[in-house]
């Protein structure tokens, strides 16, 4: 717990070696589940995101150091999802790749891992990203049927196989669709967050306010052309399908709660506040980020938006209710700040993934809570409050949608462009704090600075 001594000087790269810089990013517009990408596979979408990136930066035939990414909901046939996407792309087929998965933090963790290799000098360039589809999600056979089929395939005789098949019951034939429930608790992420929301006493109005800002910020960014060099359309979709530029507090207030409906009767519970409007919808999409050493970017005449300064991954004990499932970023950030000698206020932008509006709010509330920061985070007191006008300034997952593994790439590319723009405007370095919470009580935070 936050035992790392702050390094001397502020925000210095912690490793020797070279900087890992963010050159740019690309994603496809995010589609609502069952929408425009209903028949697109993770590989289709990851390849499309990659192809847009290759086209933007002229990487055709280029042998990159590595392409790293993954998907949360993944078919067994997609065991080499990213490598297969590379082979289907215009990159050199000699570009290595591997799959990585850390639930919703997949994309950000991929950025961290690629930048670490760059900083170590093991690779000069790399792409990090992620893809997820709930529309083309794998359907598994039930456990009974699966065991019977496995037993049959292992059986040495016809009799053995018949015996295995005979064990199949009609109920075994029902397919299993993937669930987003936490395997260890059986509670959906929304139910978990509803408990955290109740614990922290976050109001419906505050959540709707976050959701509304997300839609308005994202719509303004689209209208202002911010995404012109961050997004490549796919399958006829040219903007994020979930975005509602005309959303209003009144409209959001009419939505019925969907999570935590049973909690009102609980001791310590509260009236339900989480609606479809202040929770992320199920979404399809993919995103990638191009990273490289400064020297590589220079040699290739590529722009440099920002550098990945440092990152920290945390995990919390949520299984028996000690901590909220999505509270890990609250833990990761102070550790990261301590290592970098930074304070919470030292940022021009805060990109906090909006798994739910209340995720953002409980995280912020936690940092402002003296008692919590001392007992749970091992700090001397409250970490502090942030300037809300710097929070998710171009919208986040509530408006854009949240195709799990694709969110990290979306946020990192957005943050990199934001700090680059700010630095260009002011002539001073700009800095962003990025955090993504994930299933399993995981959370990743990163510091990104204009290059």
């Amino acid at each position: 717990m936050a035992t790392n001594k702050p390094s001397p000087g502020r925000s210095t790269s912690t490793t020797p070696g070279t900087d890992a810089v963010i050159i740019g990013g690309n994603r496809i517009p995010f589609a609502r589940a069952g929408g425009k990408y209903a028949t697109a596979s993770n590989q289709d979408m990851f390849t499309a995101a990659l192809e847009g990136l290759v086209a933007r930066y002229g990487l055709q035939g280029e042998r990159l150091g590595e392409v790293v990414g993954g998907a949360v909901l993944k078919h067994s046939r997609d065991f080499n999802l990213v490598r297969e996407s590379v082979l289907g792309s215009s990159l050199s087929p000699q570009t290595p790749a591997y799959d990585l998965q850390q639930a919703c933090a997949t994309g950000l963790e991929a950025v961290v891992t690629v930048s670490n290799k760059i900083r170590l000098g093991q690779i000069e360039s790399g792409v990090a990203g992620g893809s997820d589809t709930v529309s083309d999600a794998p359907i598994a056979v039930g456990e009974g049927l699966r065991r019977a089929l496995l037993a049959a395939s292992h059986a040495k005789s016809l009799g053995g196989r018949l015996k295995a098949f005979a064990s199949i019951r009609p109920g075994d034939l029902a397919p299993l669709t993937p669930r987003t429930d936490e395997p260890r608790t059986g509670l959906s992420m929304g139910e978990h967050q509803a408990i955290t929301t109740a614990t922290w006493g976050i109001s419906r109005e505050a959540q709707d306010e976050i959701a509304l800002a997300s839609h308005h910020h994202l719509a303004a960014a689209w209208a202002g052309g911010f995404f012109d060099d961050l997004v490549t359309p796919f399958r006829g979709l040219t903007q994020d399908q979930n975005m509602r530029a005309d959303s209003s507090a009144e409209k959001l207030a009419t939505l019925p709660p969907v999570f935590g409906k049973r909690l009102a009767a609980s001791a310590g519970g509260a009236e339900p506040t989480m609606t479809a409007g202040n929770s992320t919808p199920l979404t399809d999409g993919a995103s990638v980020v191009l990273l490289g050493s400064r020297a590589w970017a220079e040699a290739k005449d590529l722009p440099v938006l920002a550098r990945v300064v440092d990152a920290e991954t945390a995990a919390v004990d949520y299984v028996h209710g000690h901590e909220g499932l999505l509270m890990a970023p609250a833990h990761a950030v102070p550790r990261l700040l301590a290592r970098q000698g930074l304070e919470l206020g030292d940022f021009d932008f805060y990109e906090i993934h909006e798994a739910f509006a209340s995720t953002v709010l409980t995280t912020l509330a936690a940092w402002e809570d003296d008692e919590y920061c001392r007992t749970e985070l091992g700090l001397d007191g409250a970490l502090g409050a942030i300037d809300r006008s710097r929070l998710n300034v171009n919208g986040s997952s509530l408006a854009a949608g949240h195709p799990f593994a694709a969110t990290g790439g979306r946020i990192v590319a957005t943050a990199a462009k934001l700090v680059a723009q700010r630095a260009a405007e002011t002539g001073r370095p700009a800095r962003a704090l990025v955090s993504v919470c994930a299933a399993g009580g995981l959370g990743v935070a990163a510091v990104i600075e204009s290059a």
Partner: protein
Amino acid sequence: MTRVETLPALPALGGLYARGLASSGRIAVRRTVSSGAGDLVLPDVTYRVAGVDTSVPDVAAHLERYRRVVGEPAGGTTSAGNPAGVPAGFLHVLAFPLATAVMVRGDFPLPLLGLVHVENSAAVLRPVRLGDQLEVRAHATNLRPHRRGAQVDLVTEVTVPGEGLAYRGVSTYLAKGVDLPDTSSAPGTEPDARGEWVPPLPTARWSLPAGTGRAYAAVSGDRNPIHTSALGAKAFGFPRTIAHGMYTAARALAEVGTGRGETYDWTVSFAKPVLLPSTVDVAIRPSGPGGGFTYQAWSGRSGTLHLTGAVTPRS
């Protein structure tokens, strides 16, 4: 002095049920005849089976199926390098036929099929490992009046010869409507305060499919029709099959996880049964600084309490 009767092996449950059905009918007849009589006595006998060999593949396979049904993680090894002890719930299952054998004796005064499992308390005093040769004992004790009938404790014990008592389980059953002499003063051990009970914030949710009863019946041997067949459940006044209480308790034990340690006490008391299929909200929380966990499970829809219990490490 209690008489110890040694059986050659743990009995098969199928045959016991047949006998149980028969004796239940006989007891019912007898009870009708001697209604109001206060002459119910427990048989003063302890059943004993020695040399229960857990090294045979059948037991390993049985344990594997049990683990899968209740969600116990694979055993592995302990920090000391020993194979992990088998879960208490499995020892309960292992000894269950012997306890049942006591309950189907002709001189057992209560009808097997009408018995309601209301409480269970088990202690793992030393780890029992797959491969140990075990001695298993069972007897009935403490027949006592209850507001709604009579209660009896079935005690099962597992001993590792040369090491001592490893497990002791006490299962409390209620025979509804059976009169003991002083029922007027009988305590109500059922949590009667369910109206006042307020569920805590859940930490988990169980989605129990309709086949839950059949799945646990297959690994526990407890094929009581109220758990396995809709018709059977209706015959006993339930609209649908109900989950085995011990299944829910065993699942809670499993979900406490490694925090329970190698030796622990595990208690449960059952309130309203869980009708299947069902979604059950669960809270499993550390009970204090001393270690140990308490758990509650209830219907998220109605707030009706299903069970409460605790798992407390002994070391």
